[in-house]
């Protein structure tokens, strides 16, 4: 470990010196390189698309704050394959010398990226992957997250469930890190308030045959069900929940991803589902209204949370560059600038914790006519506990 650190420090020092001298020569006209490492094919492709759209939109809107610096995008498809993550990250770092690397969606890919990018001369901004570890034990000065930690959106739901007088709850998710961490967040708050988790169902990832599990839930007949599913799995789950007649009999609660970017596919089955998330379509603030309007105009579809998170990654870059007057050659200063920004995001004000995870409001939403309507703010300016982070 000692050796490793020493090596890393030397490498870091070496590259910093190299870039400094290069930067000095190149003057500020050189474009800022933004590496994009998102899935553009495979099961998470929709999330990757949305994140990239948001990112590009933000940097386009805020082009005026970049002090004349151009942005050059280098886009790489991760295919959501963790085993390829280190290689692609290394490509963006060592081949393209990207100043910022935005990615990924998938937590496994995030792990592979962090392994390569931690403490390197680039800034990694995670626009989705919520693995607690990324801003927990693995946190690093150059790793930021504009999305959430798995804990964040589901923790407040525990109190919401208690307030609704649910005592006996079944939790359910895919059996992978993100799923487990999300359920743990809910459990922590729910149990602390005296609630009881009567069954936890872990579905093999990425299986989407939910019928047998739902039949079982029907026979248990709990007060409510809390789930974490996203993307295609969320569509299938919500449809099955409705088709098997559970909807309307057992309230369905979820981490907000259950109804993000999926409501049009879910159709009427999604109506009335209550979820907690750090964003809602109907958030009534100026930034959000403008954001949604522009997004609709540029890409011809409704924005979702993934687009917002990408957008905020762009915002964060723009803010920091602006603050430094366009000169981002000093990494320490850049990190300092990023840490101290407060973003005026479509989701409200966002600032960053010591561990570089967003401090943000968590909203309770309900699906009404295919849109996530805010009904409450169960946790304002919620900060992730960042367990294990030494920053």
């Amino acid at each position, binding site marked *: *470990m000692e*050796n*490793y650190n020493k*090596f890393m420090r030397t490498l870091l020092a070496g590259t910093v010196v190299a870039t400094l001298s290069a930067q000095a020569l190149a003057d500020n006209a050189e474009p800022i390189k933004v590496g994009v490492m998102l899935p*553009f*094919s495979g099961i998470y492709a929709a999330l990757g698309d949305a994140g990239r759209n948001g990112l590009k939109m933000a940097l386009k809107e805020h082009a005026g704050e970049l002090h004349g610096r151009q942005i050059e995008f280098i*886009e*790489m*498809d991760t295919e959501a*394959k*963790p*085993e390829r*993550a*280190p*290689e692609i990250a*290394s*490509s963006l*770092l*060592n*081949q393209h010398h990207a100043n910022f690397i935005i990615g990924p969606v998938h*937590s*496994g890919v*995030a*792990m*592979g990226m962090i*392994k*390569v990018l931690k403490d390197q001369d680039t800034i990694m901004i995670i626009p989705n992957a919520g*693995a607690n*570890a990324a801003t927990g034990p693995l946190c690093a000065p150059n790793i930021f997250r504009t999305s959430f930690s798995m804990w964040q959106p589901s923790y407040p739901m525990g109190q919401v469930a208690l307030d609704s007088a649910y005592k006996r709850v079944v939790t359910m998710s895919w*059996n*992978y*890190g993100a799923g*487990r961490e999300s359920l743990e967040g809910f459990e922590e708050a729910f149990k602390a308030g005296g609630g009881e988790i009567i069954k936890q169902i*872990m579905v*093999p*990832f990425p299986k989407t045959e939910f019928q047998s599990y739902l039949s079982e839930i029907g026979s248990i007949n709990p007060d409510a069900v809390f789930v974490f599913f996203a993307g295609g799995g969320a569509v299938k789950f919500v449809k099955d929940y409705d088709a098997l007649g559970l909807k309307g009999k057992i309230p369905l609660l979820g981490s907000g991803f259950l109804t993000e970017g999926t409501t049009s596919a879910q159709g009427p089955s999604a109506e009335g589902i209550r979820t907690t998330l750090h964003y809602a379509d109907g958030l009534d603030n100026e930034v959000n209204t403008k954001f949604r309007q522009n997004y609709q105009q540029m890409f011809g579809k409704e924005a979702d949370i993934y687009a917002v998170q990408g957008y905020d990654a762009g915002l964060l870059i723009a803010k920091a560059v602006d603050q430094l007057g366009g000169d981002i050659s000093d990494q320490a200063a850049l990190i300092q600038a990023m840490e101290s920004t407060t973003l005026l995001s479509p989701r409200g004000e966002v600032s960053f914790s010591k561990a570089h995870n967003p401090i943000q409001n968590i909203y309770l939403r309900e699906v009404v006519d295919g849109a996530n309507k805010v009904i409450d703010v169960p946790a304002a300016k919620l900060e992730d506990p960042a367990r294990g982070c030494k920053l």
Partner: protein
Amino acid sequence: MLFNNRTERYFVWVFFPLALLMPLFLEQNTFYVSKLTTVMIFAIFVMSLDYLVGRCGLITLGHAMFYGLGGYIFVMIAPEYEAVNFWVYTFYICVIAAAVALVIGFLVLRTSGIYMIMITLAFAQMTYYFFSDSLDFGGNDGVFIYVKPDTSLFGLSLFDLENPTHFYYLCLLSLFNTLFFFRLVTRSRFGRVIDSIHENPGRTTALGYNIFVFRLMAYTMASALGAYAGYLFTLQYGFVNPSMLAWTTSGSALVMSILGGIGSIYGAILGVLVYEGLHFSLEHLTEHWLLFMGALIILMVILFKNGIAGYLEKLLERR
């Protein structure tokens, strides 16, 4: 002459000297060095698969199981914060993987053809879910290796694994040794029996050979080498993830091996180079790289009857 096929000899004489000099040209760009390293590691893996599929006629869709095991065995047996000896652990990993292969081979080699494809897949999927579901080894998100082994042998440390160029040469050496080893094996008496079994298993049984034992030996050997490749891959970035064991990894390896020229052994290097090269350049060109990749694969199947190696052989023999 060990490399008795003319095309292969040319290839070996062109590829290895070039590969040996490559880092000199790429000094500024460590990424290309790492990329080539990855390519060579995967070539070792594909070569071991090529031996099984092309030389032994044992088609498996579960070879990635050993690739992943190479990494996971290290995670399981090596202390987390202490540098271990590379060679000793290479030995451990190969032996453990061979033992696993012996047991699994004992079961799967009773079947053949598509049934063997599927039963190997079944075992690989079981292992995949074992590591993906279990919380002890990082689950679906994978696990980090914090300390890389040191490579001292008799007090002499040849490679510093933290140095990408050193690691590159270690992998190049491994690749050459693997090719050399498979050449020895295919030329040996054991290889004669394996060739016979591949060509005509019934006849070989009638001559008094217990073909099951020979197949089991070949399977075990190739699996241990597959695990070695996985071990190297794990060491390169210090990251192990269950997706190494996924059937898609076996699938791409099979594709590369067929593309390179099944059964030619050295074709594995060609297959990985061409596939990864195409992938790399296409994904830099367009977001819809899959479309072009797919179309090129289809074209190549139709045009090259025996893969790239077969095509090269045809070209060179024509003169």
